[in-house]
């Protein structure tokens, strides 16, 4: 493997390794589509998430790799499992022939997928033939520290250049939480299991402080190292989910009430908008960072990068509280028949 630090755009990872990983990603995706058993499909999807995280980490995009690993392999799989246990299992409709090849069974999806793949390949070819790739990235790599004072270029793009988009993304999570709560709150009986065995409870208690510390470090150092509010908030939500599973939902609700989750989520959104309004009041525009009242600080120290630390905190509060309340709303109607 060639060393990092030479000219940009050159491959950092050996191509055969990447090709092998891409092949495995395609294989797991195909397995997830064509398996009859839904649970095995979930496991295959989870493996695909891990492989994609590996590819992102190899291609030097650790922020995306973190998100991919946490969201796709952890949260999405657990949400799918809850949804699976909540839905009725309907048998296959009889008019579909089980003996046919898969592309004959699903003609229209196969057609759509083929068309989409052709379009994407066409776009890729035109990109490769035309202007050189990587002009925007080299601009951001050289200008980010001067413009924002943050060391993490991806975090700076998300929270400074594209902060308004990030506000929109957090609003999407708010909409998802509202929808799930609305759908699942219909006056059902709240069951709570007693959780798993004593060994797992004690082990979880041993690990929880370290997971919380990790989440806090991802959020607070988001402008310096890979990570940020979204990733750290997802790790916080993972802690809440683990508590639901290990100790039972009743315990989780008694420790972190859903009222306080709502308060934290709304507080995160309010903090984000408030920081934006400070920039507006200063005359630098909505969500202005260095053009507003925020100072760049020493590069590499905790208090640097202007408002990015506060914005990471706001996004972390919002994502952590939002994802954990989605999971709580979904799992609280499960009956876990496990004795103490």
């Amino acid at each position: 493997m060639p060393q990092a630090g030479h000219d940009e755009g050159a491959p950092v990872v050996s191509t055969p390794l990447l090709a092998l990983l891409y092949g495995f990603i395609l294989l797991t995706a195909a397995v997830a589509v064509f398996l009859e058993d839904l649970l095995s499909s979930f496991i295959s999807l989870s493996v695909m998430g891990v492989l994609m995280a590996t590819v992102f980490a190899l291609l030097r995009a650790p922020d995306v790799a973190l998100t991919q690993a946490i969201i796709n392999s952890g949260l999405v799989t657990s949400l799918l499992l809850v949804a699976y246990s909540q839905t009725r299992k309907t048998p296959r409709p009889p008019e579909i022939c089980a003996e046919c090849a898969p592309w004959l069974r699903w003609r229209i999806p196969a057609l759509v997928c083929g068309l989409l793949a052709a379009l994407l390949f066409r776009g890729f070819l035109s990109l490769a033939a035309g202007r050189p790739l990587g002009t925007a990235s080299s601009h951001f790599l050289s200008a980010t520290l001067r413009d924002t004072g943050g060391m993490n270029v991806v975090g700076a793009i998300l929270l400074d250049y594209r902060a308004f988009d990030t506000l929109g993304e957090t609003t999407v999570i708010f909409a998802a939480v509202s929808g799930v709560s609305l759908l699942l709150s219909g006056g059902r009986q709240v069951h709570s299991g007693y959780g798993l065995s004593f060994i797992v409870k004690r082990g979880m208690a041993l690990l929880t402080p370290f997971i919380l510390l990790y989440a806090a470090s991802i959020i607070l150092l988001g402008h310096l190292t890979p990570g940020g509010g979204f990733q750290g908030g997802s790790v916080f939500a993972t802690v809440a989910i683990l508590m639901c599973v290990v100790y039972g939902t009743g315990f989780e609700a008694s420790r972190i009430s859903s009222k306080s989750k709502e308060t934290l989520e709304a507080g995160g959104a309010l903090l984000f908008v408030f920081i934006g309004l400070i920039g507006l009041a200063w005359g630098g525009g909505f969500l202005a960072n260095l053009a507003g009242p925020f100072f760049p600080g020493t590069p590499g120290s905790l208090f640097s990068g202007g408002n990015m630390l506060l914005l990471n905190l706001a996004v972390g509060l919002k994502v952590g509280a939002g994802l954990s309340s989605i999971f709580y709303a979904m799992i609280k109607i499960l009956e876990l028949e496990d004795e103490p």
Partner: protein
Amino acid sequence: MTWAAVRFLGGLCIAGGVFFSFAAVVAILRFPDVYTRLHGSAKALSGGGILILLGALPFTGSISGALKLLLIALFFAVSNPMASHAIARACRRRDMMKEPRW
């Protein structure tokens, strides 16, 4: 002991970890029921993962990197038996032996 010998030991650990992971895959595919398969799959992490992490220690190049690897190995050593125990207990409570699915 010279540096090359330490690296050779690291490589040996990684080879052992690969062997354990391979053996775990064979066990999951070939063993007859839930509990024996669980017994095999636990080796993928507690044998394979930890050995590979220990073998990667001489190749990190910094003390902080090596410490991180040791912490991850410790995390595996705590969490993997816990997870296997939880799965085995859930299988026993739901009487997975009474309906052999494979």
